[in-house]
């Protein structure tokens, strides 16, 4: 006996929770169409009607017709009256407030977001207005920003995704250090590890590509639209393994271990002295050479030999900049 009732009340808790959100909305927006409510609150129309049917046998003692909440569903529209006490929404629970606030803060930390000023002011309003024990304890203790690059092209890319517009972009490929013009059909924009990415069909490669928004130098509308191909969106891995990849083996020193957190490392083995041997697949040896340079001695190339050569050549060329230009050095340090 106890168990079925407990289950029923578990469901009742969820239904009560959503009714206490839907009812104030309908009280303030009389005659809202059912499909719109279903859309706004993510509830099936049939479930909504079932809840509303229970609502209009509820009310205040002595539960005479004049004491009950007045619910009308006519021609697919909903009116709720006689429920003054449900005309304002209930407070956010602590964990609801935290969830929204922290998601908002994280989004502010992805630079270039068009809505950033509005989001920042909305979050301040939440801090100030939700009550002392809701978010006030966090004011000044959550900081975001820095590190990433502002993506000028982000707003244009997002608009193109919404309107299915084909774009012509100037894109900087870091590995090859070249700026090339490409025609793309952008399907998704999302942020990951502090950067914004555009998922698009690239007509130059005739394949799907992931573009970092901050490396798009310019965006031009082509005036054409496209039919989305259903490319995978947010949540996709930033790196997709292909059979053309080269497996690179590196030995990483203790302070270079962060590489394992950032890139798709396939295997790793501990070595004495805090060193770790890792295997990293890559499409791009020149990019990998830059990574090894950046790690400046904290990473040793085990294979392929071509990569080790590339690193040495690049280092030699860089060293040449300092050995050739005596006069400039003097000027620079002045």
């Amino acid at each position, binding site marked *: 006996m106890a168990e079925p009732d407990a289950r*029923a*009340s578990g469901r*009742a*808790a969820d239904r*009560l929770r959503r009714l206490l*959100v839907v009812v104030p909305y309908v009280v303030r*927006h009389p005659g809202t169409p059912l499909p719109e409510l279903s859309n706004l609150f993510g509830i099936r129309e049939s479930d909504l009607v079932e809840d509303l049917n*229970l609502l209009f046998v*509820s009310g*205040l003692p002595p539960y005479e017709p004049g004491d009950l*909440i007045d619910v009308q569903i006519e021609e697919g529209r909903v009116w709720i009256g006689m429920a003054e*006490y449900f005309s*304002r*929404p209930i*407070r*956010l629970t602590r964990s*609801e407030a*935290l969830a*929204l606030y*922290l*998601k908002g803060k994280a*989004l*502010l930390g*992805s630079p270039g977001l068009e*809505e950033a000023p*509005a*989001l920042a002011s*909305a979050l301040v309003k939440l801090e100030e207005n*939700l009550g002392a024990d809701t978010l006030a*304890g966090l004011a*000044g*203790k*959550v*900081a*975001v*920003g*820095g*590190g990433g690059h502002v993506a*000028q092209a982000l707003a244009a890319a997002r608009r193109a995704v919404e309107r299915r517009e084909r774009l012509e972009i100037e894109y*900087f490929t870091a590995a090859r250090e070249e700026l090339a013009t490409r025609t793309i059909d952008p399907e998704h*924009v*999302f*942020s990951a590890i502090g950067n914004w990415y555009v998922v698009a069909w690239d007509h130059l490669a005739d394949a799907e590509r992931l573009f970092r928004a*901050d490396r798009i*130098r310019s965006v031009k509308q082509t005036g054409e639209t496209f039919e989305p191909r259903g490319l995978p969106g*947010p949540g996709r891995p930033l790196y997709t393994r292909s059979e053309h990849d080269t497996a690179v083996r590196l030995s990483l020193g*203790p302070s270079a271990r962060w590489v394992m957190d950032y890139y798709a490392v396939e295997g790793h083995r501990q070595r004495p002295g805090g060193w*770790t041997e890792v295997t990293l697949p890559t499409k791009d040896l020149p990019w990998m050479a*830059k990574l090894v340079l*950046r790690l*400046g*001695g904290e990473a040793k190339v085990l294979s392929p030999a071509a990569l080790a050569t590339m690193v*040495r050549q*690049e*280092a*030699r060329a*860089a060293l040449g900049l*300092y050995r050739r230009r005596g006069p400039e050095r003097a*000027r*620079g340090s002045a």
Partner: protein
Amino acid sequence: MHPLERLINLVALLLEARRPLTFEDIRGVMPAYQQTDANSAKRMFERDKDVLREVGIPVELAPIDPWEVEQGYRITRDEYYLPEVAFTDEEVWALFVAAHAPGEGGEAEQAFQKLSTGTETNVLAAMAERTAAPGVDPSGPYLGAIADALARRRAIRFKYRSAQGKPSQREVDPYALVFRRGNWYLVGQDRGRGEARSYRLSRLLSAVKEVGAASPPPDGFDASTQLESGPWGLGKPAARARMAFSPKVAWWAIASTPGAQIVRRRRDGWVEVEVPASETESFVSWVLSFGADARLSSPRTTRDQLVNKLEALVGDG
């Protein structure tokens, strides 16, 4: 009677009552609790009360008379109703985008729905047509619990894997949460190590356990100084560096370096700039990542450090 109907009636009754109501008062007016067995009615009421609290409805016990002889239940309106917060349409949209970013979304969406009750219908309808710009969920499973401990000034214990890969138990007085380059970090006093440290949330190996009151941060502690702001590393840049970028990388390098200032464009296409810097390994690494497309001219000591590294790389690559 359906449990939902009973719950709605109970909320309405307690919200509208002018004084706290005892269970007997409630039983007197609500037919749902009028079964013959008073004990089973009381048990049902207790369960209902738990459901209301689970949903976030503040059901409190309070004395029903000035002599405080008997206690009754009430829902205080000030505690129940969401305070009116006036958001602009732009702010509502921004909160919608935040609520719909990927990750555990249920609670954030619920929060958004409550906050947007007063919003014009057409604004919300327009939102359904737009596409939120979502991101990859950076929060992980422990963010909420840590934020909660931070807000309530509780010390916490958790298992953590350091950047060097060694797992260990940490006990921390939380000072701040920092979101940097796509990751959440906890900054706080590490009790075992006796100094302030930062912890990347994705490296936590266990749930957090609260272990009593936390000590406050030192005077003048500012969470915003815990942000990495550029190639110079953490905090405010201590120095400025003079360097030049090749024509191939100049656009990208300058656009992606906060505070970079162009000094002059040379005839060979190289661009000379001044950038915020620090005399640290991380700044040297950043210059090295450009390979032969960047040349550092000052600070002198940093340049010497860089040249040494390049010589070593040429030697043993």
